[in-house]
C-alpha cells in the first residue's frame, strides 16, 4: 500500500483513542493533577508517568479486544463469566460512573461559577440540555465543538514554559520513585491513577472501536491511535502538575476551589487566566458528561440483554432510557447538595474510580489472554506478566489506603519504611 493510502486509512480509523484520551482529562482529571502539583510539588510526576504507561497498556488491551472480537467489554464479560460476575462488574461500573458523572457536573458547575453563574441555575439547565441533545441530535458534531474547547488545556503547557520551573529538578523528580505511607499521599496517588485509567474509559474505547467497524486487520492503525491519545493524556497531565507545582506549591497556596487551579495559568493569561481555565474545564466536563451516562447505559443493557439504542422509542427500551436519565439527573442532583465542596467531589470520585478499577482490569486481562477469544491476537506472556503486575500493584495500593485510613498508626510505620526505600533509590 502506498504511503498516502496508509495515511488515509489511518486518518479514517483514528478517533476512538484520541477522544477517550481527551475525555480522560476531564473535570476530575484536572482537579486531581492540579491538587497533586499544588500539594506535593513535583513528587507525584513519577506516579503520573507510570500511570500513563499503564494507561497505554490498558487502552491497548481494550482496543485490541474490541477490534478482534467486534464486541463490547460487557458483552464479553457476560459470555465468558456468566450472570453473577457480570452483575458484579456492572455494579462496579455503575457506581464508578455515577461518581464520575457527579464529578463532571461539579466541573460544569465550577467552570460556570468562574463566569459568575450560580450552580443552582447552571447544573439543572445543562443536565437538561445534555439529556435532550443526546437523544435529539447528531452527537458527532457536538463532540467536535467540545474537543475544540479541550484544546484550551494546552495553555497549561505554555504557562508552564513561561514560569521557567527548575527543569533539572522537575526531570530528576520525574524519574525518581517517591512514596509516602500517609493516607493523604496514598489517596492522592490512587486518585492520580484512578483519573488517568478509568473503568469507563476502558469500556468506552472498546465500544467506539466496535462501533467504528474496525476489525483485526486494521488493528495496527488503531494501536497508533490509542498510543497517540495516551501520549496527549500524559503530556497535558505533566504540564498541569508542573504549572501548579511551580506556582501554587512554591507559594504555599492550597487549592480550595476550582478557581484556585486557574491561578497556575496567570503567568500566561494574566487576569484572563480564570476565563481560559473556565472554558477548558467546561469543554472537558461536558465532553465526558455526554459520553459517560450514555456509554454506561449501553454497557449495562448490552450485558443483560435489555433493548437499547437512542433511536428507539422510550417504550421499547425503558431500562436503557431509565438508566441514562437516572445517571444524568441523579448526578446533577448530588452536585446541588447544599454545602458540598465541588472541588472535593471531583477529587473523591477519582479515588473511587481508582479503587474500583482493579476488578475491571482483571476481567480485561483474563479475556485478552484467552486464545479461544483472541486467536493470534492473544496477549503475549510478557504482556500478561506486566498486566498482572500492574493489577496487583493497584490492588496493593488500594489495600494500603484502606489500612492506613483504618489504622493511622500503620501509616507512620509505612512512612518510615518508604523513607528507607526512597533513601535506597536516591
Amino acid at each position: 500500500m502506498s504511503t498516502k493510502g496508509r495515511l488515509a486509512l489511518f486518518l479514517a480509523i483514528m478517533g476512538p483513542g484520541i477522544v477517550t484520551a481527551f475525555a480522560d482529562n476531564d473535570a476530575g482529571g484536572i482537579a486531581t493533577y492540579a491538587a497533586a502539583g499544588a500539594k506535593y510539588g513535583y513528587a507525584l510526576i513519577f506516579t503520573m508517568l507510570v500511570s500513563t504507561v499503564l494507561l497505554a497498556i490498558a487502552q491497548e488491551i481494550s482496543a485490541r479486544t474490541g477490534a478482534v472480537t467486534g464486541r463490547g467489554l460487557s458483552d464479553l464479560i457476560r459470555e465468558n463469566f456468566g450472570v453473577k460476575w457480570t452483575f458484579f462488574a456492572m455494579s462496579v461500573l455503575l457506581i464508578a460512573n455515577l461518581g464520575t458523572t457527579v464529578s463532571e457536573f461539579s466541573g460544569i458547575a465550577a467552570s460556570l461559577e468562574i463566569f459568575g453563574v450560580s450552580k443552582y441555575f447552571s447544573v439543572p439547565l445543562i443536565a437538561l440540555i445534555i439529556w435532550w441533545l443526546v437523544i435529539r441530535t447528531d452527537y458527532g458534531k457536538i463532540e467536535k465543538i467540545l474537543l475544540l474547547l479541550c484544546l484550551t488545556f494546552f495553555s497549561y503547557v505554555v504557562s508552564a514554559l513561561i514560569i521557567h520551573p527548575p527543569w533539572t529538578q522537575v526531570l530528576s523528580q520525574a524519574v525518581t520513585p517517591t512514596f509516602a505511607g500517609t493516607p493523604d499521599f496514598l489517596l492522592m496517588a490512587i486518585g492520580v491513577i484512578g483519573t488517568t485509567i478509568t473503568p469507563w474509559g476502558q469500556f468506552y474505547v472498546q465500544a467506539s472501536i466496535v462501533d467504528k467497524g474496525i476489525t483485526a486487520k486494521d488493528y495496527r492503525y488503531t494501536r497508533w491511535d490509542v498510543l497517540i491519545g495516551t501520549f496527549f493524556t500524559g503530556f497535558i497531565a505533566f504540564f498541569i502538575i508542573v504549572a501548579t507545582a511551580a506556582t501554587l506549591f512554591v507559594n504555599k497556596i492550597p487549592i480550595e476551589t476550582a478557581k484556585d487551579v486557574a491561578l497556575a495559568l496567570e503567568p500566561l493569561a494574566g487576569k484572563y487566566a480564570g476565563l481560559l481555565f473556565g472554558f477548558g474545564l467546561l469543554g472537558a466536563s461536558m465532553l465526558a458528561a455526554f459520553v459517560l451516562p450514555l456509554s454506561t447505559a449501553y454497557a449495562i443493557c448490552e450485558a443483560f440483554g435489555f433493548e437499547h439504542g437512542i433511536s428507539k422509542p422510550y417504550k421499547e427500551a425503558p431500562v436503557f432510557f431509565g438508566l441514562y436519565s437516572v445517571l444524568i439527573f441523579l448526578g446533577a442532583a448530588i452536585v446541588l447538595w447544599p454545602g458540598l465542596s465541588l472541588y472535593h467531589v471531583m477529587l473523591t470520585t477519582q479515588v473511587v474510580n481508582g479503587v474500583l478499577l482493579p476488578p475491571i482490569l482483571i476481567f480485561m486481562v483474563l479475556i485478552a489472554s484467552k486464545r479461544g477469544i483472541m486467536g493470534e491476537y492473544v496477549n503475549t506472556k510478557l504482556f500478561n506478566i506486566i498486566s498482572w503486575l500492574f493489577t496487583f500493584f493497584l490492588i496493593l495500593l488500594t489495600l494500603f489506603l484502606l489500612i492506613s485510613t483504618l489504622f493511622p498508626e500503620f501509616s507512620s510505620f509505612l512512612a518510615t519504611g518508604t523513607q528507607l526505600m526512597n533513601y535506597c533509590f536516591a
Partner: protein
Amino acid sequence: MTLKVLGEFYFSQLQNKPIWNASGERIGRLLDMAMRWDSISPHVTVIKYSKELDALIPVEWIASWSNEGIHLNKAYDPRYLYPLHEDETFIGKWLLDKQIIDLKGSKLVRVNDISFSLVAQEDYQYMVMIAVDIGVRGLFRRLGIEFLLSRISNNFVSTQYIKPLESRTSALQLTREKEQMRRLHPADIADIIETMDYKQRASFLDTLDSQQAIDALAEMELDAQVEIFEQMDEDRASDILEEMPPDDAADILSELPAEKSEELLRLMETDDAEDVRELMQYEEDTAGALMTTEYIGLSLSLTAEEAINELRRLAPEAETIYYLFVVDEQETLKGVLSLRELIIARPDTLLKDLMHTKIVKVSPFDNHEKIADLFHKYGFLAVPVVSEQDKILGIITVDDVLELLMPERSRGEIYSTLFVRRYQPPAEEPAAKGGPSE
C-alpha cells in the same frame, strides 16, 4: 404410548448441583450438559462433571433428577465414561449467556436461562430442552433472587423458534432453520445483522441465500452497508454486488477505500462491473450518481402487443415497469408511455403512435436539488437521464429521490442506531407505485 411429564427444571438450578453415586457418595458437581438436537425436541444425552472432555456420564446412568442434585444408578463406573460425540453439543457452553435469534420476535436476544422437562415414555426418561428464558426473571433466577419478581411472568422462547448464531446442530436442523429464516422480513434480518459483531455477520450471511442477503442489505443505511462490505470476504462481496441494482452497488463501491472497490470490481463479472463503473464516474451530488441503468427501453417499431411480450421478458430485471421508454436503434430517447397506456391500447397500435413526445428529462450532471424539484413539480415515478445527444443513460426513480429528501435521522456517533420495524408481510409493490400519475 403415553408421555408423562415428571418434572420441570432450569439449567441454572441444575448447574453446580452435586452428583451422588448409587451408594450415596458425592462424586462431583454437574458442570454442563450436552444434548442431541436431531429430531423435533432436543434432549440431554450426557452430563459433564469433570474438566475432561471424554469423561461424561450418559443420562441412562441417572436414577433421579432433582433440584438438590442428581443420583446415579448402579451402572455408573468411573472407568467407563463416555466421550463427547460429534452430534452432541454442550448446552451451557453453547447457549447460556449467548445471543440467539428469536425467530418469533425477529430479533437478537440473550439467553438468561434454559428450561427443561423431564419426560417419561414407557421405561425411558428424557430430559428435553423446552425453551430458553430471555426475560428479567431468568436473570434474577441466575442471581438467586427470583422471589423478588415472582409476580412477573417468564419470558420464554420455545426451542423451535430459536436460531443460535453458531450452528452446532445436525444437518436436518439446519434445513429447518433456513426454512424459518425465509419467513423473516428482510428489514428484520437487516436489523439483526446490524446488531451482530463482524464475525457473527460473516457466518450469518453465509446461511442466507444471495437473494435474502441482497434484500436485507437493501434495507440498511449506506453507512451500515459499507461497513458490512468492508468486513465481508471479497469473493462473497463481489457475488452480492453483481446481483444488486447497479446504482446501489455503485453507491457502496464509491464509499469503500479505492483499492478495495477496485479489487471487488475486478472480481465481478465484466458486464456488471462495467455498468457499475459507468455509474461511479459521476460526482456524488449529481443525477448520474443517483440513476440506475435498469430501465425498460422499447423499440419504436413495436406494436402494443409485442411490447407487452417484451415487457414480460424485461420486467424481472428492471427497477420500475410503470414507465416505458421508447428508443430508436441508437438508443436515442424518442418518447415515453405508461404501463396503463400500453395495456389499454389496441394490440396493433404502434408505440410511436402511442407515446408522448414531450419528455421531461435530465442530464447526468444535474444536481440533486433540481431533480427533487422536478419530481415534486410533476409527481413523476421516474425520470429518464439522457446524454447531450439524447441517448438514454438510465433512469431515476421516485424512491431514490425520497431517500434524498428524508432528513438524516439523528444518530449517536458512538453506537450504531437501529430502527425498530414491526413485521409486515412483504407487499408485492409499495402502494405509491400503484399506477402512473398522468
